[in-house]
C-alpha cells in the first residue's frame, strides 16, 4: 500500500484537516465507529462530545458565527441524524456555514429499513444548502472539499454528507484539496460601477436617508462592518441594524438608532417609515422587520445589496438591486461616495436629524426600576455595564430575554452576538455558547437565557463540565414562557393557556449537582454584587436571576401593524389586533 491509500474514514478526517478544521462537535454510534476510530489519537482535530446531536449543530453554529470559520459536526445514522435536523434548519435560516457528517448503514443495506437507517439525505434536503450521499468511495475526498466550498461561499449554509459505513471502511486514494476549487457559478459579485455610482448619488442627495443592515454584513467578514461604519460616517446618516446584524456598526456610533423591527426602537422604526432613501445591506426584509408590507417605508426609494439574488424583490420590491458580497460592493460604494463627497454633493440633513432626535426623546427603551423586584431590562443593562471592559461574547435562547438582550446589551464588534433569528430555536443558546467558548477559551462567554428555553438543552451542562468551559448562564427567570404569555395577554384576552413554566428545578442545586456554581438573586439591591460574582468566579456559573414575572417586552409593533403604529408600553392604546394580524406568527 502506498502512502496515499487509507480507509475512507481516515480520508474523511484528513480532508477535514486539509480544510482547516480544528474542532468537531459530535456524538458516536454504530454507523460512525470507523470515523471515531480514525479520530482516536488524532492530534489535529479536537472532538467535543456533546450530549445531544441538536446541540452539536448549535455548538458548531456558535463556533462558526464567532470565528467566521466553518463549523463541523459528526453524528451517527438514524436518530443521530434526525436529532441534528433542528440545528441544520437553524443554520439554513441564519446562513451559518456548517458541515454535518452523518453515518449511514452500509450501501448494500440502504433501502431495507436496516437498523438505524433513515433517509437522511431525503429528510435533510429542504434544510440544507446542499447534501450528499457518498455511494462511491472514489468521490469521497472531492465531495468533502466541495462541501466546504459550498458551505462557506455565496450565502453560507449547512451541508450534510451522509457516509455509509462500508464507504468509511473502503480503501481509498487520498486526493488533496485543489488550490483553486471552481466556485459555484452563481456566486460572483456583480460589481456594476455605473449602478453603484447612481446609488452613491442617490444616497448623498437624499434628504431623509437611512441604512438598514443585517447578518449578511457579519457573514461577509469584519472588513464589511468597517466599510459600513465608514459609509455611515461619510454620509452622516442614521443606521439601524436587524437582530442578526447587531455589532456590525458599533452601538456607540452616534448615528446608530438601535435595532429595528417588531421590538426595535421607536426612532429606528419611525426613521424607516419616513425615509426617502433606504439602503438595505445584507438584510432580507424579514417579516419581523417590515411589519405590514403595504405600509412599509411608503415614500422611499429602496436599494438592496445582497449576495443572494433570490432575496432581492422577494418580499419588498426595490428600485435598485445589487447582487454581491457586502464587502466587495461596499468598498466600491464607499469609493464612489468619497469621490462625490469631494464635489460637495452631500445634502445637509439637519432637519432629518432634528426629527429623529424628537423621536428619540420618546425614550422607547425607558423603563422604571422601582421597588425591590428586578426588572429584566435592568438585569441586562447591569450585565452590559459590568462586562463592558471584557472580551465578551453573548449567546441567547428565544423569547423575551432574547429581545431584552438585543435591546439593552451593546455590541461594539461583529461576531460577538449569537442568537437564533430566522428559526427562533429555544435551546439554541446553551450549546451555541459551548461552541463559542471552545473557539475563544479566554473570553467571557454568557448565555442569556429564559428558564423555559434553558430546559430545552440543559443536558449540555455535562459537556460544559467535561471540558471545563467557564460559561456563564444568565437565566432571566420569570417562571413563564414570557413571550408566549405576552402574546396571550395582547391577543388572546389574557387566557394563559399552558404558558406557565411550573415544576422548575432549583437552579442552584442543579448547578451544584454538576459540580458548578449556582447563584440566585431576587432583590435589585443584590443584582450588581451577583453579577460581579458571576464574572469573578473562575468557572461555569448558573445564575438564577428572578425577575419581575409579568413584565412585557416593549416597544412593539403588534402583529399586522406598520412601523408607525408601534406601541411603547402597556398603557398605550392597543388597537385590537386585526384578524389578519391574529393569523401571523
Amino acid at each position, binding site marked *: 500500500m502506498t502512502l496515499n491509500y487509507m480507509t475512507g474514514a481516515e480520508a474523511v478526517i484528513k480532508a477535514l484537516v486539509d480544510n482547516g478544521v480544528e474542532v468537531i462537535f459530535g456524538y458516536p454510534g454504530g454507523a460512525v465507529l470507523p470515523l471515531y476510530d480514525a479520530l482516536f489519537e488524532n492530534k489535529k482535530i479536537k472532538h467535543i462530545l456533546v450530549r445531544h446531536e441538536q446541540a452539536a449543530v448549535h455548538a458548531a453554529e456558535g463556533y462558526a458565527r464567532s470565528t467566521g470559520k466553518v463549523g463541523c459536526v459528526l453524528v451517527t445514522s438514524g436518530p443521530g441524524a434526525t436529532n441534528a435536523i433542528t440545528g441544520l434548519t437553524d443554520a439554513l435560516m441564519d446562513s451559518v456555514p456548517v458541515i454535518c457528517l452523518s453515518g449511514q448503514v452500509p450501501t448494500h443495506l440502504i433501502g431495507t429499513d436496516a437498523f438505524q437507517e433513515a433517509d437522511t*439525505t*431525503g429528510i435533510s*434536503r*429542504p434544510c440544507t*444548502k*446542499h*447534501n450528499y*450521499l457518498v455511494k462511491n468511495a472514489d468521490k469521497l475526498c472531492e465531495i468533502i472539499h466541495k462541501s466546504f466550498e*459550498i458551505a462557506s461561499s455565496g*450565502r453560507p449554509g449547512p451541508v450534510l454528507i451522509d457516509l455509509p459505513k462500508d464507504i468509511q471502511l473502503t480503501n481509498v486514494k487520498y486526493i488533496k484539496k485543489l488550490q483553486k476549487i471552481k466556485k*459555484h*457559478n*452563481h456566486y460572483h459579485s456583480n460589481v456594476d460601477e455605473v449602478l453603484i455610482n447612481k446609488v452613491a448619488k442617490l444616497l448623498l442627495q437624499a434628504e431623509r436617508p437611512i441604512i438598514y443592515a443585517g447578518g449578511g454584513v457579519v457573514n461577509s467578514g469584519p472588513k464589511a462592518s468597517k466599510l459600513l461604519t465608514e459609509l455611515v460616517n461619510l454620509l452622516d446618516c442614521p443606521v439601524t441594524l436587524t437582530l442578526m446584524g447587531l455589532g456590525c456598526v458599533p452601538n456607540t456610533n452616534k448615528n446608530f438608532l438601535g435595532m429595528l423591527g417588531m421590538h426595535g426602537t421607536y426612532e429606528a422604526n419611525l426613521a424607516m417609515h419616513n425615509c426617502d432613501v433606504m439602503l438595505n445591506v445584507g438584510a432580507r426584509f424579514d*417579516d419581523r422587520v*417590515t*411589519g*405590514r*408590507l*403595504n405600509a412599509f417605508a411608503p415614500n422611499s426609494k429602496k436599494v438592496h445589496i445582497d449576495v*443572494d*439574488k*433570490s432575496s*432581492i*424583490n*422577494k*418580499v419588498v*420590491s426595490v428600485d435598485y438591486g445589487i447582487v454581491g458580497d457586502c464587502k466587495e460592493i461596499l468598498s466600491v460604494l464607499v469609493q464612489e461616495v468619497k469621490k462625490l463627497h469631494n464635489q460637495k454633493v452631500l445634502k445637509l440633513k439637519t432637519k432629518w436629524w432634528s426629527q429623529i432626535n424628537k423621536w428619540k426623546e420618546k425614550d422607547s427603551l425607558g423603563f422604571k426600576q422601582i421597588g425591590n423586584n428586578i426588572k429584566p431590562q435592568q438585569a441586562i443593562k447591569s450585565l452590559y455595564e459590568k462586562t463592558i471592559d471584557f472580551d465578551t461574547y453573548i449567546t441567547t435562547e428565544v423569547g423575551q430575554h432574547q429581545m431584552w438582550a438585543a435591546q439593552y446589551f451593546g455590541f461594539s464588534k461583529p461576531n460577538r452576538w449569537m442568537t437564533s433569528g430566522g428559526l427562533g430555536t429555544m435551546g439554541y443558546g446553551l450549546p451555541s455558547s459551548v461552541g463559542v467558548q471552545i473557539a475563544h477559551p479566554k473570553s467571557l462567554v454568557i448565555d442569556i437565557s429564559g428558564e423555559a428555553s434553558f430546559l430545552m438543552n440543559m443536558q449540555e451542562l455535562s459537556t460544559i463540565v467535561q471540558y471545563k468551559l467557564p460559561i456563564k448562564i444568565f437565566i432571566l427567570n420569570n417562571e413563564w414562557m414570557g413571550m408566549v404569555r405576552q402574546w396571550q395577554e395582547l391577543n388572546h384576552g389574557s387566557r394563559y393557556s399552558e404558558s406557565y413554566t411550573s415544576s422548575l428545578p432549583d437552579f442552584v442545586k442543579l448547578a451544584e449537582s454538576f459540580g458548578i456554581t449556582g447563584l440566585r438573586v431576587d432583590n435589585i439591591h443584590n443584582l450588581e454584587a451577583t453579577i460581579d460574582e458571576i464574572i469573578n468566579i473562575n468557572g461555569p456559573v448558573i445564575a438564577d436571576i428572578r425577575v419581575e414575572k409579568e413584565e412585557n417586552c416593549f416597544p412593539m409593533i403588534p402583529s*399586522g401593524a406598520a412601523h408607525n403604529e408601534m406601541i411603547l408600553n402597556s398603557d398605550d392604546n392597543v388597537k385590537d389586533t386585526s384578524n*389578519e394580524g391574529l*393569523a*401571523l*406568527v
Partner: protein
Amino acid sequence: MSVYQKNELEEDETSRTLSLIVDNQPGTLARVIGLFSGRGYNIESLNVTEIDEIRNLSRISLVTRGTSNTIEQIKSQLLRIVPVHIVRDLTLEGPFIKSELALVKLVVKGANRVEALRIAETFRARTLDVTLSSFVFELTGKPSKLDAFIDLMRSLGDTEVSRTGVSAISRGDKTETKLLDQI
C-alpha cells in the same frame, strides 16, 4: 409571498416555459421539485432526461404559472440549487419550440373505429398497436394539439393516455455549448 399580503392588485399569472441544465445525479430532481412544493409554486409540466453523457448533464423542461415577480423568484431560487447550472426562461428570451409526445389507447368497436383512424390521420398520429377492439396512437406536437386529439378520442370510447410533458428548445443558432463548457 410574505404573510403580510400586499394590497396592490396582483398582476395576471401567465404560463412560462423554463429550461434547466442540471447535474444528472440523485437528489437534483428532488431538490427542484421540493422547491416548487415547499414554496408553493405551480408545476404544469415537467420533463427530465440525460442529454450529455460525458458531462453527466440533464435537461429539465418545466412549465410553470405565475406573475412575473413569482417567475423571477422561481428562477433565482432555482439557481441557488447547487447542481442547477443554467436556468433559461424560454418564454421571455424569444422564439422557442415546445413539443410533447402522447401515447393514446382507445378501446373501440364498430363504426367508431373508422372514425378514429380518420381523425388519427388528420392529426398525423401514428398507429402503434391494433387489435379488434383497440388502438394505440402516438402523437407529437404542441400540447394544445395533443389536448384536442385526446378530447376527440375520448368521445369515441374508453381512452387511456400517457404523455411525456413538454420538451422545449430555443429557435435559431443560439446554443448553450459555451456555457456548458464552463460547468
